[in-house]
């Protein structure tokens, strides 16, 4: 049997695809197996094709591949949409009694399992459980202990009463028995269980969790796919720690509320996706000029305009780096994995407060909706450190006042970092403004003060470059002539692609960059390599441009902008193609 199993359930939006997939994914995770999920979904609530895919293995899985082993197809379209990924020996579970599925033709070499999902569900207590019957059937195919599914069903339906749980367990068993009794095929799969403990979560949840761990107490946002889950995660949880979530009337309001909360001393955050980032851009400069610590999350999706709201892209990089009029210091971080979403969120709050700047967290749809298993220690709460920077308490205010006795929120210090005091603190009253200002925060057009303040704000970035670690994550063969660079969510796919490449005798050095600004200096690495390829999910190569700019040389590019994340095997082929091309060129 193969090391990993790729499973999917697909149907129409509204068919309960998501929750069924999640039940299965959780069952696998609780059975000590690693899981990596992905979703195909359309931007509509009812109707339209949607699928939930689960890749599982005993070893860690970090990406999707172009292969589907077991497919539960609730509609004909599910089969059509996935034909490319199905292969000889793939199993398709479907309900042949369903009128629309009666004419289903199982492609050559594949195994069709016609299971009366609806009738069996009715036998168990209600047609609504047909997806669970299908899960039971899948357990039979994959030789996965159905008891592990029981726990998941308990978790999912426990709130609705014990009889509902029991009915669902029965539905699963009927599905399994039906397959066992009616098909004597020997399937290739055997999903063994282990004793490992894993948690299963997605990037949006990890960002929310990181925010709470880092002491974020205020969140304001406006719903938008695929960032909404951050808000939904925080709602109901942040309150436990004395915080609040406010759903604002739009993104302009959301970022300004968060700014207000940050001025009042809270660690504050907002999250949105492309169209919302456009609206927030107006306030980027205000955040930077008033030197307010703020974390702004952009969970990127396909643009431009409303683009493809439920599809993957990394197209907002330039926007995050350069968005807003004038010139402003800012930090841009891009988590590379689901668990890095947690760590980078924590880091973002520290950077924001230490340097009193906006910090952008560039996540993307692929990270946001991917659920992945991790040992819980990967989210080590004891390791979370909180650095609030140069906060001046009430008793220390006198040290930071002007000759006239007034607090100086924009004092020019050697490292560019000014003192900060929170409203309510006696003697610290001060103003700040988006207008150019002096150390006291008062408007000025004095040419010298202007230059000094601009320099001061930029100096914070220099200070940060010196003081913080902006290293990339390195994988593969450090001495290889081929250097592959990616940023953000492509890390997992590329790491797995390296495995495929190795099988073909191609070893590469892979540098995964989680810091876009400031970013690691890759000049030496680029110069040391014969071939440099930058991998990213956009059409124009926004990060490749930065690498070229920094290293003063041309690089090759692999760009994907069809709305689907990189798949490991596909990416390996891309790399080979690019290397092959250049081999031809040099020959």
């Amino acid at each position: 049997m193969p090391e990993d199993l790729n499973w999917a359930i697909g149907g129409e939006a509204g068919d309960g695809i998501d929750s069924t997939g999640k039940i299965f994914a959780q069952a696998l995770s609780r059975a000590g197996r690693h899981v990596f999920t992905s979703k195909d979904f359309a931007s509509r609530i009812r109707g339209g094709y949607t699928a939930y895919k689960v890749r599982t293995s005993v070893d860690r899985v970090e990406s999707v591949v172009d292969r589907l082993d077991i497919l539960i197809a609730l509609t004909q379209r599910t089969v059509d949409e996935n034909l490319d990924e199905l292969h000889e020996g793939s199993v398709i579970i479907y309900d042949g009694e369903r009128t629309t599925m009666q004419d289903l033709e199982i492609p050559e070499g594949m195994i069709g399992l016609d299971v009366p999902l609806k009738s069996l569900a009715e036998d168990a207590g209600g047609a609504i459980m047909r997806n669970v019957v299908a899960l039971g059937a899948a357990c039979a195919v994959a030789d996965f202990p159905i008891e592990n599914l029981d726990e998941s069903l308990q978790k999912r339906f426990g709130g609705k009463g014990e009889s509902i749980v029991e009915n669902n367990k029965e539905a699963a068993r009927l599905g399994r028995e039906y397959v066992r009794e009616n098909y004597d095929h020997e399937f290739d799969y055997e999903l063994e269980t282990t004793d490992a403990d894993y948690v299963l979560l997605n990037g949006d949840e990890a960002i929310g969790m990181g925010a709470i761990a880092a002491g974020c107490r205020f969140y304001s946002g406006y719903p938008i796919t695929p960032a909404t889950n951050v808000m939904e995660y925080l709602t109901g949880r942040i309150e436990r720690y004395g915080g609040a979530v406010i759903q604002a009337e739009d993104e302009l309001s959301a970022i300004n509320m968060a700014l207000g909360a940050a001025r009042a001393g809270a660690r504050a955050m907002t999250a949105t996706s492309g169209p919302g980032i456009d609206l927030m851009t107006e306030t980027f400069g205000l955040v930077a000029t008033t030197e307010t610590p703020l974390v702004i999350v952009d969970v990127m999706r396909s643009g431009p305009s409303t683009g493809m709201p439920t599809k993957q892209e990394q197209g907002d990089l330039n926007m995050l780096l350069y968005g807003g009029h004038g010139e402003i210091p800012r930090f841009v971080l891009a988590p590379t994995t689901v668990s890095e979403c947690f760590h980078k969120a924590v880091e973002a709050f520290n950077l924001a407060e230490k340097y009193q700047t906006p910090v952008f967290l560039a996540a993307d749809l692929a990270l946001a909706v991917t659920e992945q298993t991790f040992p819980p220690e990967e989210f080590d709460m004891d390791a979370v450190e909180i650095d609030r920077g140069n906060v001046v308490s009430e008793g220390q205010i006198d040290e930071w006042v002007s000759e006239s006795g007034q607090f100086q929120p924009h004092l020019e210090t050697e490292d560019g970092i000014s003192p900060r005091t929170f409203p309510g603190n006696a003697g610290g009253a001060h103003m700040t403004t988006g207008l150019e200002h002096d150390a006291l925060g008062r408007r000025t057009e004095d040419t010298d003060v202007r230059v000094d303040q601009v320099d001061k704000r930029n100096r914070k970035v220099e200070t940060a470059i010196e003081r913080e670690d902006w290293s990339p994550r390195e994988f593969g063969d450090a001495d290889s002539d081929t250097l592959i660079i990616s940023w953000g969510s492509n890390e997992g796919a590329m790491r797995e692609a390296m495995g495929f490449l190795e099988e073909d005798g191609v070893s590469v050095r892979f540098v995964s960059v989680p810091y876009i600004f400031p970013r690691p200096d890759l000049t030496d690495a680029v110069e040391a390599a014969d071939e440099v390829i930058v991998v990213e999910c956009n059409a124009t190569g926004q990060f490749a441009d930065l690498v070229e700019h920094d290293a003063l040389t041309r690089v090759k590019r692999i760009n994907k902008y069809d709305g689907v994340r990189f798949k490991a095997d596909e990416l390996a082929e891309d790399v080979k193609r690019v290397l092959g091309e250049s081999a031809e060129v040099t020959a």
Partner: protein
Amino acid sequence: MSSQVRFTDFKSDKQPTWCPGCGDFGTMNGMMKALANTGNDPDNTFIVAGIGCSGKIGTYMHSYALHGVHGRALPVGIGVKAANPNLEVMVAGGDGDGYSIGAGHFVHAVRRNMDMTYVVMDNRIYGLTKGQFSPTSREDFETSTSPDGTHQAPVNPLALALAAGGTFIAQSFSSDAQRHAQIVQEAIEHPGFGFVNVYSPCVTFNDVDTYDYFRDSLVDLADDEDYDSTDYDQAKEVILDSDKEYQGVIYRDENSVPYNESMGLTENMSEIPDGAPEDAMDLVREFY
């Protein structure tokens, strides 16, 4: 809060650059008096200002303050109050700032009913950009961008506030110093969103909505013994009466429950632990 606070403690040492005679002087003085009278001091007060001549107010006052971008002052104020409900939050701006670019935020701030005060310096013109019509300008008002009138009906901010579920709606006139200060004070004391539209004449660009005009036409609701500001229907009548200009507290919902209270926002969010919360591993375990 100390009882020795005087209203001049809210004055900064910056000399206003408003045109001599600008209504904003009176508006600001009244705000400072109201703040002092309600027992606030600069260190527990946060003023958020809009953009415009009116928005310069934060510079001339002394308190914790932020001068933001055009039209977004209200959301900033809401964020400040949410993060530290102990602060006295006052937002101030012009009619352009509040009812044009910021109109969306205005309606939502009213209905959100956060316990704060919003003072709009309504001069029925854009002052800072030198005399274009504003959303409260009359239909026949001639300006550089409306040479033969605006061709649109003015916004009625009080009606907007009433329709949005406002719990405190008032209007004052900056040169009626005592009444103006008193009305702002009542807005501060109101539990919820205290909204005051202040007639604050622009002496440079508006020769129609002048001091004389307001002085002559203003009806003070305090002079009408039969007027009951808690009576919604009476308030509606006054607000929709386009023949007269009124000052006073026009509507007050005695049952107002501020958003911060109903949302349970009581903590000063600036205080956080040195590391992750003690029970933070529970957040991870939820994902088993």
